């Protein structure tokens, strides 16, 4: 009997089990459900990356970090120092997750993975930039108290103030520069000197929203650079 069984081919044994009803096919909905779950995961992770990237763009605009490179080497140095590196790292980790999820699809694996990685990053940068231009994050920031998980992110970054970068509204012009009120409602006196870099033709007046680059000493900022935010 055993000898007979040994002589049977793998195909014979499997067919025997099929005919005896011992082997069952997994139903079509099983695979459909798996596909839906995979697509849902891809969509959720993509949306999370888009949210993070757009939030990074929104915050670097809001904090004025984006204007810092206008002011030379010190500006670039301050720019890189002020970037939310852990949010950028988190976005990269999500991109890696996304690549792992999609790498089994022919559209992805038939080309070098680098192309897909570049494609995803470009899409997220363009999409993130577009979302950052809407009032989506501003509204979430204003309602941060009521948002369960992301609220903390908005509260933390909403109050964050990068070193040597000040954003506020000019409330009074004076001989040495102007007085401005920043987003924390602090009043700062901005001194404009010969070393201050100002965009050609820029004229500052009361009510302008401005970005000031320079070190703060108590309530005074010695401006190394100025940029009118309305000009972006």
């Amino acid at each position, binding site marked *: 009997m055993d000898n007979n069984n040994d002589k049977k081919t*793998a195909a014979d044994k499997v*067919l025997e089990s*099929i005919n005896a009803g011992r*082997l069952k096919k997994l*139903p079509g909905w*099983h*695979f459909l459900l798996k596909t839906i779950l995979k697509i849902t995961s891809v969509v959720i992770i993509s949306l999370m990356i888009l949210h993070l990237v757009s939030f990074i763009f929104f915050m670097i605009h809001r904090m004025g970090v984006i204007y810092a490179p206008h002011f030379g080497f010190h500006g670039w140095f301050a720019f890189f120092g002020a970037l939310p590196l852990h949010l950028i790292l988190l976005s990269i980790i999500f991109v890696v997750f996304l690549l792992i999820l999609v790498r089994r699809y022919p559209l992805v694996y038939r080309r070098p993975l*680098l192309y897909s990685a570049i494609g995803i990053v470009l899409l997220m940068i363009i999409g993130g930039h577009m979302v950052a231009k809407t009032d989506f994050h501003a509204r979430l920031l204003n309602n941060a108290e009521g948002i369960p998980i992301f609220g903390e992110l908005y509260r933390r970054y909403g109050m964050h103030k990068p070193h040597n970068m000040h954003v506020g509204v000019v409330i009074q012009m004076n001989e040495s520069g102007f007085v401005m009120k920043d987003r924390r409602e602090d009043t700062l006196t901005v001194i404009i000197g010969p070393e201050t870099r100002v965009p050609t033709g820029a004229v500052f007046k009361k009510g302008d929203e401005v970005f000031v680059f320079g070190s703060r000493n108590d309530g005074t900022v010695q401006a190394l650079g100025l940029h009118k935010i309305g000009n972006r």
Partner: protein
Amino acid sequence: MSELTDEEIAIRVQQGDDPSFGILMQRYEQKLTRFGRKFLSVDEDIKDRVQEVFIKAFASIQSFDHRQRFSPWVYRIAHNHFVDALKKKSREKVFSLDLDVFFPHLVAPETADSETHREDLKRMLDKCLNKLDSKYKEPLILYYFEDMDYKEIADILQIPVSTVGVRLQRGKTMMKRIFEESGETYG
């Protein structure tokens, strides 16, 4: 029934004609056994492994997209199963993400080896299979023993077509080195 294509038979199985799966198994048993024997480089449990591949293929038949070819689909199942078997049997690191898949390569064109040269290569490959890294061994087996083209191999291994070319090229170079080291002649 024998004149039907693999894909047509697969559709019949999907529609409930389960015994037709036997025809597919008959068509692929020898091929998968040869593939498994060369890839796993062991003899004793190949029959069981192939049987498990068929069981998995039958269970998953509803996931087969009949607009695609059946052959790469069933070989993909076999590849996954054999890789799992290798992982269990040895501590060899099998197919972790490597830079071959990540970075683009100049596409190594699919070259048609002459029949004699191909037979020589097959004979040599047979002799040194055990000494080759799985990463290079599998494309060589699929190309020279299973007569698959780059695209089919790319679909089975789920790697870029250009990477298949690169791995075949490197595999052949490795094979040449193994032969030179053993004092035999290559080609």
